């Protein structure tokens, strides 16, 4: 037999017996960030393509969720910090090799942008809104003039944010389950599909709903493709990656992953949306909520499972 023991009885909290440094805060933050990114990307994309009026909800209404998601996300990130009074150090340093630094700065850009975007569309929600001060109106005019540029910034930073939620984890060589570059695109597509689902819930326009059901269907297909790809990559790799994949293929996270993420979060909503596109009448909220739930669970399960995935030595 083989035996490996810590004779010095090491029991560092949050490290032993296995890494347990990140709890609900980080996966929730990754989910909120990802969903906000999805919403903003979709809004920006349709605006740039001049389809603002076809997809009014997606461009003008759904983005109102984004600032809330981002602020709550930032808050959970802040709660997760253990040396909170020094959080400002994030913004006195630019660390090009640190995904966390990228993320902090990306949020620094996209959060105000999302606020501005909402401000530009505030009258879609409160038709009699008045900014009261002239200088604010001037600013509004300025941004309205450069709305296209703003949309481009929002699109680019949205994509960075969406990918970043995955890269944050995939940059950790030490945790083989996370250490796959598929995680970036997977989380981006998951965020986009959650964003699309948000519009699906909010939209009252049948055509728009149909379009977003279609988008969601495609995104779910892409996600499934990435997941299959991820496992193929793991299983064809070294022992540590094989062990990592086994966490989901017979290991402790098998049930939760395949039931919550894949079945409930992808297959069932895909089926429902497929039926919706056909003749069946399905309340749009059901698949949309399932997609959002699946997207949330994906972050949680990957974040937790990754912490028990380790190198063997």
């Amino acid at each position, binding site marked *: *037999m*083989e*035996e*490996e*023991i*810590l*004779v*010095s*009885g*090491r*029991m*560092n*909290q*949050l*490290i*032993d017996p296995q*890494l347990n*440094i*990140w709890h609900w805060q980080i996966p929730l933050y990754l989910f909120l960030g990802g969903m906000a990114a999805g919403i903003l990307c979709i809004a920006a994309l349709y605006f740039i393509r001049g389809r603002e009026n076809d997809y009014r909800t997606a461009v003008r209404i759904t983005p109102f969720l984004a600032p809330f998601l981002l602020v709550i996300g930032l808050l959970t990130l802040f709660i*997760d*910090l*253990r*040396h*909170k009074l*020094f*959080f400002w*150090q*994030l913004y*006195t*340093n630019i*660390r090009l*090799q*640190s*995904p*966390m*630094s990228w*993320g*902090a700065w990306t949020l620094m850009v996209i959060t105000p942008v999302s606020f501005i975007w909402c401000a530009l569309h505030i009258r879609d929600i409160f038709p009699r809104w008045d900014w009261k001060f002239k200088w604010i109106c001037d600013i509004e005019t300025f941004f309205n003039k450069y709305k296209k540029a703003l949309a481009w910034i929002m699109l680019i930073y949205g994509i960075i944010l969406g990918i970043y939620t995955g890269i*944050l984890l995939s*940059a*950790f*060589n*030490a*945790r083989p389950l996370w250490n796959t570059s598929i995680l970036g695109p997977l989380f981006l597509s998951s965020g986009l599909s959650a964003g699309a689902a948000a519009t699906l819930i909010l939209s009252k326009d049948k055509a728009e709903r149909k379009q977003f059901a279609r988008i969601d269907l495609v995104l779910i297909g892409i996600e499934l493709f990435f997941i299959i790809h991820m496992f193929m990559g793991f299983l064809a790799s*070294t022992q540590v990656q094989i062990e990592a994949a086994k966490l989901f293929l017979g290991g402790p996270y098998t049930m939760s992953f395949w039931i919550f993420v894949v079945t409930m979060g992808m297959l069932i909503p895909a089926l429902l949306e497929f039926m919706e596109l056909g003749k069946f009448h399905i309340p749009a909220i059901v698949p949309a909520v399932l997609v959002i739930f699946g997207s949330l669970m994906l972050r949680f399960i990957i974040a937790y499972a990754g*912490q028990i995935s*380790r*190198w063997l*030595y």
Partner: protein
Amino acid sequence: MRYAMAVDTRKCVGCSDCVVACQTENNVPHGFCREWVVETMNGTYPQLEIEIRSERCNHCINAPCVRCCPTGASHFADGGIVLVEHNKCIGCGACIASCPYDARYPHPEGYVDKCTFCIHRIKIGLAPACAAVCPTKCIYFGDLDDLNSDVSVVLKKRKSKTLIPEAGTKPQLYFLI
């Protein structure tokens, strides 16, 4: 200058003195440690072999913790020693997650803490506390660029290995086998 440490697994008895010495020297709070001792056993009775290793931060040349730190709190000091500047650390835990050796831990005061190779001792010409206390003298410390340093000499004389070299971190904690 390139500081490194070599631990002789043939002499180490796993007494964990290094761990206590580090704890008192560096005021590491109870319930935490900057270093630890691993014992591995292989075989079937009575054909057995064990290996005992006193482990700590590997002060990697390609340190993932320094790379992923968003504030630069984790940094390289002279001689490649990986340090955490407490007042720059926000306690995000990224470095802890990034370390394949699990060598870092969150200090109860919030910042992340780890082995410093006892830089405060090295600077005044003392060996790190673990090396100075080890009853079996199995911990060698010194500058790899100095061919006459304890660690250079012993690494030249003996076969050695590092942990998880395939992680690409270029660890500077060697184990004599």
